[in-house]
């Protein structure tokens, strides 16, 4: 009795704060609201407007480009680090501490650090040119086509350690018998990892992918700190598009339509992961 009662505040808070707010956003997206919410039904007008905007297309595409690269690179790099650390390495604790510390920093700090490092006039490019390679160019940060990749570099720097930590724990949980059996059969270590150990750790890998995808969908601060969405709006992301339209451009209806599309994307993603999990249980 008392136990149910104790949960009531949290349930109310989440019902209103999460579900109520989500529903409200969806409702606003079907109205003609601009500066303040106006509850005149406008059908899909906001969505139609959204899809005519080049900025939205760039932002939405960027989410997939950034997301795919960020997840793939963090995963590969993190797994390699975990495997490398798994080889009875000297100084492992120190290395782990170095690999993982970026996760303690905010995306704002991460973005500022990498902006400084990749800034063509003061950073890496300037340094290499100073070494005598006058024609060396690494100006991705100021190139509309390439700036989104700088976000990937900074993102991977931030997240690869997390994958490493989770995967390293996963590797540690593998039964020693399996390794012994592999040695008896004379299977090379690399083959063991590729064909046996990593497939065994698929659930752990899925966990990493879920965590990384959450970052992608929420990634807002990295863009704000690193590129401000620029040059132009070439590194815009849906999250930033929504915030800008809510608070500086006061297009509440348009922003809500964009937010609703973000929500829809998440639901698809969650269903996909749910399905993957079920597949795993079924087998």
């Amino acid at each position, binding site marked *: 009795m*008392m*136990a149910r009662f*104790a*949960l009531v*505040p*949290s*349930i109310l*808070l*989440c019902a209103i704060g*999460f579900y*109520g*707010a989500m529903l*409200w*956003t969806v409702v606003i997206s079907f109205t003609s609201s601009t500066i303040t919410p106006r509850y005149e039904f406008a059908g899909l007008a906001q969505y139609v407007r959204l899809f005519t905007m080049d900025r939205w297309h760039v932002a939405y595409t960027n989410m997939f480009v950034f997301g795919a690269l960020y997840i793939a690179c963090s995963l590969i*790099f993190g797994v390699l*680090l975990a495997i*490398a*650390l798994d080889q009875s*390495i000297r100084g492992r604790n120190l*290395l782990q*501490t170095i*690999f*993982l*510390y*970026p996760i*303690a*920093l*905010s995306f*704002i*700090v991460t973005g*500022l*650090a*990498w902006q*400084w*490092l990749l800034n063509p006039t003061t*950073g890496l490019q300037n*340094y290499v040119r100073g070494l005598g390679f006058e024609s060396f160019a690494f100006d991705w940060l100021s190139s509309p086509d390439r700036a989104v990749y700088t976000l990937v570099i900074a993102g991977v720097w931030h997240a690869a*350690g997390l994958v490493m*930590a*989770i995967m390293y*724990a*996963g590797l*540690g*949980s593998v039964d020693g018998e399996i390794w012994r059996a592999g040695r008896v059969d004379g299977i090379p270590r690399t083959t063991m990892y590729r064909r046996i150990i990593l497939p065994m750790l698929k*659930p752990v890998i899925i*966990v*990493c992918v879920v*965590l990384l995808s959450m970052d992608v969908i*929420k990634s*807002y*601060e990295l863009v*704000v*700190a690193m590129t401000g969405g620029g040059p132009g709006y070439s590194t815009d992301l*849906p*999250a930033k598009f929504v915030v800008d339209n*809510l608070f500086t451009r006061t297009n509440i209806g348009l922003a*809500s339509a*964009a*937010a609703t599309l973000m929500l829809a994307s*998440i639901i698809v993603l969650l269903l996909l992961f749910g399905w993957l999990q079920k597949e795993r249980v079924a087998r």
Partner: protein
Amino acid sequence: MTMLQTAIPSAVPRRARKHRPAAAIGRLGLYGFLVLAALFFAIPLIIMVSTSLKTVEEIRTGSIFMLPQALDFSAWAKAWSSACIGRQCEGIRGGLWNSILIMVPSTALSVLISALNGYALSLWRIRHAGLLLSALMVGAFIPYQVMIYPLVRMSSTIGIYGSIPAVVLVHVLFGLPILTLIFRNFYSALPEELIKAARVDGAGFFRIFFRIVLPMSTNVIIVALILSVTGVWNDYLLSLIFAGRENLPMTVELASLVSTRIGVPEYNVNMAATIITALPPLLLYLFSGRYFVRGITAGAVKG
């Protein structure tokens, strides 16, 4: 739900391996990879620190990899107390106090409420406990942007928008899913007999919680506190929107400091401000390693 519970005990002793001479080149490549990776991770921090100790003149004429000629802490002093943020030139020290004012109630409340939730959901037979938890976890996956505008309206309706209570409430809300999950997983491992025995002795729900369960929870509370403190400290968006102009925390102040352009850009001051802001969570990470890792990976335990 079980995947990381089995994966997490990382202190499992590693298998001892024999090294054959033929593998020596392989080992060399291995260490080479690790050292390069360590450089990749370390360089941004090293460069931030070294830039913050240079003079503006040194930055302009030298390269970023050059170490400072003399340790000059004036950029730190300026970032702390006299750098301009918009029109106010008082540095980011005001943000520190605001960060603390936001962080303390946010973390205390979210950890206490989440512990209570986790306890109720795992040790008491509650109908639909699994469903409730899943419904709660959905909140961890939805981007803030989907909920933020209605939350602004709601908080202004109850008259707290643009104040510390508003940002605390929002932090508690968004912290609940993961923290509740951490406590639930911890309490699920406690024996049910514990509760049964206490109930036979006539202890009620809250008495058992405060007298028996909470004193056993030191480790998990530390994990949850670290996760919560880091999350709240590093937050930008929620504070920017809900805290109000007078109460902006350090992370937000840092972002505005860096984007404030008056005269020659002072990269050394920017970098000093960045390090000052990053220092609290960084120290927390360095001094609590094991707990920190457990916290961030606990977020992974999703069914």
